[in-house]
């Protein structure tokens, strides 16, 4: 009983400390610039910078509000860079209907900021069930005859010169699920387009093998990498803001681990 009380009390203290570590940095602002950017993050940035004006780029959004905390900032930063480079942005999702409004909000928000025109500079496609990526390899317009507003896609200026997936210069998948596996199979292996992945930190470790085999050009894994991307794009956003509480919480956890080990060592030596 005493042990259970002590255990619960410890948990309560830890939870309160974590809550404070997360909330106080929201109000006390301090700078935490990145000294280096991870190579895997820089690869995506460099690729977009190297694309000529007017190149078509696909943004595949595959996440829901639960993972938006990590994925929305990186998608915002990426869209900003694409619009700054005057690339043509095609937004789609192969994940499910819940991803469409999120993607629409993100792309529309940045388009409005940067004065981009729908149908000319960017377009948003509806969710299509089934292996639409397979059809895109043969005929883009067979896969997507109309956009999410039911307007025909073929006459749109944003689709000029695009016949199949092979005509796309880069595809970026922001994924909380396994959609990138399909893009690697059909986008990279079949259509030979360059791929990038933005994902949650937990998932990122699963995709390092694809970086090594060069099936993925780059990887933005988690909020830290998202803030690095915001730094590259020179538009700090929620990911950069999130680095303050993330840093404090990580330091807290390290401190808790040290305290735990100290207690363990002291207890062990007392038993001896």
């Amino acid at each position, binding site marked *: 009983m005493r042990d259970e009380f002590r255990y619960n009390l410890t948990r309560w203290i830890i939870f309160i400390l974590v809550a404070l570590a997360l909330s106080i940095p929201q109000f006390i602002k301090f700078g935490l610039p990145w000294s280096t950017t991870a190579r895997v993050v820089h690869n995506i940035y460099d690729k977009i910078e190297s694309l000529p004006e007017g190149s078509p780029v696909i943004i595949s959004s595959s996440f829901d509000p639960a993972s938006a905390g990590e994925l929305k900032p990186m998608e915002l930063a990426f869209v900003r860079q694409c619009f700054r480079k005057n690339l043509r942005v095609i937004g789609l999702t192969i994940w499910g209907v819940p991803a469409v409004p999120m993607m629409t909000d993100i792309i529309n928000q940045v388009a409005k900021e940067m004065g981009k025109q729908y149908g000319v500079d960017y377009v948003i496609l509806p969710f299509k069930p089934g292996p639409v990526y397979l059809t895109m390899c043969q005929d883009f317009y067979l896969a997507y005859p109309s956009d999410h507003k039911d307007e025909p896609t073929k006459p749109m200026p944003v689709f000029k010169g695009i016949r199949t997936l092979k005509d796309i210069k880069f595809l970026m998948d922001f994924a909380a699920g396994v959609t990138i596996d399909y893009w690697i199979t059909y986008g990279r292996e*079949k259509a*030979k387009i360059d791929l990038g992945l933005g994902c949650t930190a937990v998932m990122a470790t699963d995709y390092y093998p694809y970086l090594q085999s060069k099936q993925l050009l780059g990887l933005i894994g988690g909020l830290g990498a998202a803030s690095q991307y915001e730094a590259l794009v020179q538009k700090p956003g929620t990911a950069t803001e999130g680095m303050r509480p993330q840093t404090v919480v990580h330091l807290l956890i390290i401190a808790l681990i040290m305290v735990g080990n100290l207690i363990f060592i002291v207890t062990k030596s007392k038993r001896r």
Partner: protein
Amino acid sequence: MPSRCIGRGEKDKGANELHKTLLLFIITLIFLLSTLPLVAQEPSLILPEEFTAFDTPNDAGKSISLVWKVSSSDCEGVEYIISGSTNPDGPWQEIVRLDATKWFKSDAPQYFGLGTKHKEYHFYEVTNIPGRAETLTNGTPYYFQLAMTNGAITAPSPTTISARSRGNWFDSSKTNILIFVIIFSALIMFFIAAARRNPHLFIRRIPGLDAVEEAIGRATEMGKPILYLTGLYDMSYVPTIAATCILGRVARKVANYDSQIKVPSYDPIVMTVCQEIVREAYLEAGRPDAFKEDNIFFVTTDQFAYVAAVDGIMLRERPAANFYMGYYFAESLLLAETGASVGAIQIAGTDSVTQLPFFIVTCDYTLMGEELYAASAYLSREPLQLGSLKGQDVSKAFILIVLLIGAILSTSGIYFILNLFKTF
């Protein structure tokens, strides 16, 4: 002052030189002017050779492949125009225009393999002719023509080729998969058969499974239920099937101990399967009256709603033992940490590599990866099942040897072994 007088002979010589120079200049001018039309003329397009059509291999039909050799005129700005018809004399419909710097046979290794010469041929897969039916019809002959254009001039092909599509009965690009499936299956079946002859097979201890009896005994002593979760996949996934197999073993022990087991399910089909499993377990233990169908129930198919419900069950009912078997996502730590807070003994088994660290840190015992699949055989101790474990281990040894050989060969610059394992 001496004067330089030009004599008459020297004068003639000078005039000759002047005439020669003038003549040379005029000839050069004429030559240049005559070559001007050649320079100003557009380069001619050299039509490619070996334009062939055939049924696309390794597919369900309704597709014809067109292959032609790369032309020396291929460059930026040049396009190939493919036209098709159902008659050899037309009318011809333009099917597609292709960039001459793309669309190679090497882009389709699932049809043609990994040969180095495939980069010398273009390839396009025709699945429909615009204006006709949605897809090609198997068995119907289709006719094709190839033309080249650079925007200014178009060079039509002199030949018309034809082919018929048909479905194929074997996907040859999966031959390597078939061979490995046969090898691994044969190894496993061999050891199952060997186990019939010699049932005394040694397998190492798995502490997590040895603790199952202890966990159930503890729950019985405390008068608390046992909580068993089968993961967040449905019945069509192997981890869930493995979890339900283990449930059968665990439920039998629970019935023998006259304890209670609760199984909140993520999927309705899994719920019905689990209900049958637990019912049979109680029946075999001779305690059909002790079985409560309400203990195996459906919760929800949403990830976080499920974990909220299960956490609530843990906090209210305070089970003495928690079993987490199957495939889990981000909710694994939420479940295991809540279970730890109520003081339950926890045994987890998952093949989800991203969630293993969380289970290892919070649970008393964790079955990692293949141990989940070995659990049913381990708990039952049936020789045939143990034989399959041995076959599994020998297959793993085979893979280890191939990995070693592959690493040595790849380091030496020999890559053919990588192609043996390529999938398309």
